[in-house]
């Protein structure tokens, strides 16, 4: 189908372009600036250490599911994966990608990506969970928001509704909550994917 081919090309272009366009400036250490004005990224360290992505208060705690930002090692993650159904993780460009990790209190992590700092401890992690039913995703989102607020502090921003009725209203309906502190950032999103629901999470250590 003509339109399918076009879509394929288009999203591929979107993905490739969006990634490609910036990589030379950050990954390859180009001397030039980002053509889109994103040159304020810290000279060292990831962008989530950029002051613009920080909040003004200190997080009381920095939850990251079963892991500890600034403490969990690559070996710890691998051991956790082995003990919780994830099997072997694989290295991807210096980061660790693990699949099917069981987590207490919610659906299994379909995939999790772990980034480590120069000391070899967890700097940030991102996860995707998938479920065909809305209830597990909605409930987990609600629980995470409650737990993050209780342990870290109030969120910086929220959007959408995680009510299962609202999420189920249509594809790409999304609820999101973001936490920004001086030492911690977390983002949780619950999204209707048309053929099921996705919960994505990000936890980042902002301590330089």
């Amino acid at each position, binding site marked *: 189908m003509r339109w399918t081919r076009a879509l394929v090309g288009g999203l591929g272009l*979107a993905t490739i372009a969006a990634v*490609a366009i910036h990589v*030379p400036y950050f990954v390859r250490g180009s001397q030039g600036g980002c053509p889109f004005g994103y040159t304020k990224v810290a000279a060292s360290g990831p962008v989530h250490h950029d002051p613009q992505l920080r909040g003004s208060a200190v997080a009381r705690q920095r939850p990251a599911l079963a892991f500890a930002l600034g403490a969990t090692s690559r070996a710890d993650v691998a051991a956790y994966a082995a003990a919780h159904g994830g099997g072997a993780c694989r290295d991807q*460009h210096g980061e660790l990608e693990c699949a099917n990790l069981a987590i207490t209190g919610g659906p299994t992590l379909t995939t999790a*990506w772990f980034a480590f700092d120069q000391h070899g401890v967890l700097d940030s992690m991102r996860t995707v969970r998938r479920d065909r039913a809305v209830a597990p995703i909605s409930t987990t989102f609600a629980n995470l928001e409650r737990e993050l607020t209780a342990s870290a502090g109030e969120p910086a921003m929220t959007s959408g509704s995680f009510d299962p009725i609202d999420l189920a209203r249509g594809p790409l309906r999304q609820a999101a909550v973001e936490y920004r502190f001086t030492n911690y950032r977390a983002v949780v999103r619950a999204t209707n994917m*048309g053929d099921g629901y996705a919960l994505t999470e990000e936890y980042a250590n902002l301590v330089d």
Partner: protein
Amino acid sequence: MSVRLRYHVIVAASLLGACSSDSTPSPDAASVGTGPAAKLKCTSSGKNAFDTFGAAAFVKVNESIFTNVNTEVTAHGSTNVGDSFTKIGTGQPAATTDDAATFKGRLAAFLVYVYGGPDAITYTDNKMYNGSEQDMTVAHTGLGITGPQYDYFVTNIVVPALTTNGVTMDDISSCFAPPLLDATFKATIVGH
């Protein structure tokens, strides 16, 4: 094959107010769309996405996509958006040979075309880009994009790009989501 309709949408970078009526294209422009989502009607307007939001909004969403990916790549590396970054500058796949401005213009042209705009646009760099003739299937071969990466891209890059520019959840569901979540489309992107 449809008749190639070439319509110049000159979008200035200074255009603001993505969802304002000022950005709504003329009635003539509304008739040119032949893309896959040209017939999808947004809940808010009963018209397709391009006719509803206009060129300025598409520029802003395009900008937001790049902003979000910039944050993603620099904050967390490549793992959430595929490993295509390692191929930058190699020309393998061919799309990686394009410079930044060209990528941006081509993406904008594609989005405009898919969602009911003209086949081709003149972007903010005053260059023309065709959205309807882009066939990048080959470009995915060897990239190894996974299902979770795709999900992550859609949920953390695309949807926020729309919502931060004022697109409502109703309109995202009705006139933006179907092409992105098309199973055939996803299957072609993932696993190659």
